[in-house]
């Protein structure tokens, strides 16, 4: 015990909130100064949207232990709800429309979370697939959702809060960053609260949780609601800030799996894990395409790229599940401990 305590002492000397705060300051001040539009458009915006979706899914799957394959459906619900709110309610502020669309996603999450009251594990995962297929079907079938647009693809409205327009790549980046920072902070508060501990209790042993008086059914549905709210808002960022279009095809089953992979690779039941996992998922295809183009030249076309992405990603997930089931977060913590130990002994 004492050995462990001394190992951690340099890290413990710094307040816990310092590192995240420095990171946020860096993201707000330094990155807008040094970044180019490629960095914002191709890397940071999808990274922020997927990170937030990962945070949302992690609350449901990592903390509360309910596996879901319907994340993209909740993203779609959020995106389309925000589109329709801003289209049909004149003068609705953007913030209100985001909150309302989160609530719509939460309501859909509760409905598709109902099977969790009877189903567990794989069976629950399969039943959340229903959400995925149903939402995508409904959005394609009823053209009212996309305002009867012929192609089904619609332009997202401009982002503006109180007359201030978030124009251009940097503006949209700052907008997305703010939403992600606020929701991540609230998510962090949630998972360290009694409700968050109830989530973990239900995940680890739901019979014991029921016996000691944790309202299991209510807590499960709450996990679905909160998780879907966050994922719904992530969908708004994805559509409004990143793609600037809203279309059902972008929220298919592949997207659901992608978010699930993010939290598995990043680390289940960890807020940081969602960000680490998302950065890997976003950056990795870009690195692969650069590397492939450099090594193989013209042979490495988009077909080969797509295939090799899937193969390498699949292999990576298998490796993680075997070697580091706790994900990048555990890896990160271990490296940091080694470094601080080395720093101490030198």
């Amino acid at each position, binding site marked *: 015990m004492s050995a462990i305590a001394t190992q951690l002492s340099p890290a413990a000397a710094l307040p816990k909130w310092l590192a995240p705060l420095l990171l946020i300051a860096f993201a707000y001040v330094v990155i807008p100064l040094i970044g180019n539009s490629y960095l914002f458009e191709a890397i940071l915006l999808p990274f922020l949207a997927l990170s937030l979706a990962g945070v949302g899914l992690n609350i449901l799957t990592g903390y509360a232990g309910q596996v879901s394959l319907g994340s993209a459906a909740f993203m779609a619900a959020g995106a389309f709800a925000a589109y329709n709110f801003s289209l049909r309610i004149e003068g609705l502020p953007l913030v209100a429309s985001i909150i309302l669309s989160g609530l719509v996603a939460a309501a859909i999450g509760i409905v598709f979370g109902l099977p969790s009251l009877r189903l567990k594990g794989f069976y629950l995962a399969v039943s959340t697939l229903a959400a995925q297929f149903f939402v995508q079907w409904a959005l394609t079938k009823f053209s009212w959702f996309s305002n009867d647009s012929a192609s089904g693809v619609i332009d997202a409205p401009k982002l503006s809060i109180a007359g201030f327009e978030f124009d251009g790549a940097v503006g949209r980046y700052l907008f997305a960053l703010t939403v992600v920072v606020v929701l991540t902070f609230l998510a962090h508060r*949630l998972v360290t609260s009694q409700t968050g*501990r*109830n989530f973990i209790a239900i995940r*680890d042993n739901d019979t014991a949780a*029921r*016996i000691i008086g944790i*309202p299991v059914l209510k807590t499960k549905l709450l996990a679905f609601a909160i998780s879907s709210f966050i994922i719904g808002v992530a969908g708004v960022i994805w559509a409004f800030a990143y793609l600037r279009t809203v279309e059902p095809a972008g929220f298919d089953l592949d997207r659901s799996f992608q978010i699930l992979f993010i939290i598995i690779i990043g680390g289940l039941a960890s807020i940081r894990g969602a960000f680490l996992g998302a950065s890997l998922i976003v950056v990795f295809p870009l690195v692969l395409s650069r590397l492939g183009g450099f090594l193989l030249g013209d042979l490495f076309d988009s077909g080969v790229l797509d295939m090799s992405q899937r193969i390498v990603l699949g292999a990576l997930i298998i490796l993680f599940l075997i070697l580091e089931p706790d994900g990048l977060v555990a890896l990160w913590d271990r490296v940091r401990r080694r470094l601080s130990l080395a720093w101490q002994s030198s």
Partner: protein
Amino acid sequence: MPISNHAFGAIEASVYAPEVFAQGLPAAQRQAHGDRPRQPAAEDAAPLLALEGIGLSFGGVVALADVDLSVRPGEIRAIIGPNGAGKSSLINVISGVYRADRGHVRLYGARYAQVPTQRLARLGVARTFQNLALFKGLSVLDNVTSGLAYRTRSNFAGQILGIGRTRREQQEQRGRADQVLEFLHLTDVRDRLAGTLPYGLQKRAELARALVAEPRLLLLDEPMAGMTAGEKSEMAAYVRAARDRFATTVVLIEHDVGVVMGLSDRIAVLDYGRKIADGTPEEVRNDQRVIDAYLGVASGNEEGADI
């Protein structure tokens, strides 16, 4: 704490003796109990828990057949029996995990066909499990605090924003959990993840989680299973100390006849789902049917050993 100072003749005197309440909790903590009955235990005291004609079968296999059991306030009541005798089924019926096919459970006089598991904690019943049922991903302190989750009044929004009663509630619950951890000598491991503790300490942490709610009735499903002799007597001392300090009634299932003889006030013996004996340790020890069915090999073994 000596283990076997319970002279068998002096059981009635030891149960709910005045000093139990003197050692009990300070008045502020007792508030939560409401109007807990404080009648002195006597032979004819109303039972805290009574099982009446309980029958339970799984498919064609009879787990329990016509079992009656009464538990008086403040006693330590053991249920013993060979493997597969139906002991765990009985605890599961009492805690509402199983619904009995026949008969009913009487808890503080109220009659239940199936005890409502969701309200168990509110009814003042806590239990531990035969196979560890700690929340592995939570610290020991958080595990114990979760034993008070049923009392939480604040909602998740208040907890996120830290407004309203949240802070005070959390501090109060942590304070109680810390007291129980200290009582069971677990303070050194309070911040460790429950899953990383050695087996014996996990068992004790589970006892702490059950005790933090200060239950009127504590159900212990093999609290000493898989422990060394030293750990067993330590655990027995904790069980008795918990009974004395929290003035709780204990129903416990155990394999180790030796530990049970020294610890309990009355013992019921199950065999093939039927109750074959019920009485003081002395009576049970001398019961011919018990000796035949269960103690046969150990009848000459006064020290008590695993059977």
